[in-house]
């Protein structure tokens, strides 16, 4: 019995997912450039009136694939299982975080879709839905931060000659966690780097997420290949 059967298929969903996410990201007019929190309510309402269908199509796409990262997170959990730990605690920690990130993203996604459903409503209402969507999307980082930290810790504690992941992966994860942290303070500012369209809360955060997916994807691909090669030799 090979426990790794199918893992490569799950892994190959990753580049597909990345392309879809990138397409949806570029299609959503609110991200290019990110909408300003300081936008008056009438402008927000006008934005949804003018861009209704692009908001809807991009967010429907995000709704389909918002939870698409879960297979990759489970592949990571399977690798943590191979690490030389004395308990499954850190694997459970990563599993426990896995669903939180997509759920928070989907909360934001739903508010965007609701906002676009009846753009002719009172502008204050559209602004409220828009605020809820942006705060859920931007500040919804707690589980992403935590899973990077737990993964880093798991790698540090993996005491074996042939470690599952290299040490540098742990440092990358800590750096990503640090890059995501400022986004939790997005509600405090209407402009500047902390605001939800700012350098830290938007650009650094989202680039860190994309970067994390790419780096972890590559590392995971190599690790799975190596593991399969070892199993083939053993068999």
């Amino acid at each position: 019995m090979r426990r790794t059967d199918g893992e490569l298929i799950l892994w190959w969903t990753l580049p597909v997912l990345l392309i879809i996410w990138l397409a949806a990201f570029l299609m959503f007019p609110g991200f290019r450039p990110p909408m300003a929190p300081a936008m008056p309510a009438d402008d927000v309402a006008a934005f949804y009136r003018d861009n209704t269908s692009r908001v809807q199509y991009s967010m429907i796409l995000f709704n389909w694939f918002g939870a698409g990262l879960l297979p990759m997170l489970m592949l990571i959990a399977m690798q943590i299982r191979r690490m030389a730990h004395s308990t499954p605690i850190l694997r459970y920690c990563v599993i426990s975080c896995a669903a939180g990130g997509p759920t928070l993203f989907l909360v934001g996604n739903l508010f965007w879709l609701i906002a676009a459903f009846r753009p002719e409503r009172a502008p204050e209402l559209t602004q409220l839905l828009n605020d809820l969507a942006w705060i859920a999307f931007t500040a919804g980082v707690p589980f992403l931060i935590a899973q990077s930290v737990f993964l880093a810790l798991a790698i540090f504690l993996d005491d074996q000659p042939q470690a599952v992941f290299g040490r540098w992966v742990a440092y990358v994860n800590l750096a990503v966690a640090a890059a995501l942290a400022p986004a939790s303070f997005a509600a405090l500012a209407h402009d500047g780097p902390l605001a939800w369209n700012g350098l830290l809360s938007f650009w650094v955060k989202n680039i860190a997420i994309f970067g994390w997916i790419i780096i972890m994807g590559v590392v995971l691909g190599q690790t799975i290949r190596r593991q399969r090669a070892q199993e083939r030799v053993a068999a």
Partner: protein
Amino acid sequence: MSARWRDNPKRELWFAWWTTVVFYQIFGLVFFVITRTQPPPSPGWDAARIVQWFNDNHTGLLVGFAIMFLITGMVAPANALIAYSMRRMSVSPAFGYAYLVMYALSAVPGMLLLCIALSVGAMRPDRTPELIAWIYDFAFLTYIGTMGVFLLGSLVWMAAILLDKNRVFPKWFGYLNLCNALTEVVVSPAWLFHRGVFAWNGLIAWWIDMVVFVTYTAVFIVQLRRLIQREDFETGPLPDLAGATG
């Protein structure tokens, strides 16, 4: 110092335990002191009073919930440790996994929706009072009115403890889980009342339940500590790959 910590076979357990303790301290600090959302303000207030409440706590709400957005992931080690306690019992692993996923799910409706809504409410004080009142209801009703996951989670833990033959936890703690589950039922009238003892800030639906919840939390933190202390891993080197726990 750090080398000694790394060699401790219980290091992951202690990490999870200390994270749990620190999380509940910060949680208490944010909700009781910084944001003043506990004890909860009244559901009976009119829109003007609610707007005033947002104005009074403006900075506290924004800063407090920013802290929550930063650290909420710390609930994961608590869930993981409790799930692990069930893996030590003589029951199916399904109990541990059910608890793990249930409590992982609970953080979003049970707390983060409140954090999002109250942050949104506080960031624009110039909204019309009706909208602010809507945000207020949305926040507190989702936070206090999310019952089922905690109810079923406690029952899963209870069943595991009562069925367990390894004596991981004392049986009375299993029964205490039932008491905690029943308080989640007692919360439910909060959906029906704007005032009185069953409202979301009421004497029965909030204060008495809070006493039970704090007792329960304190007890399970102590019990988890005992579990870790009793855990008898070999004191030698870490188990190798083949011995790693499945």
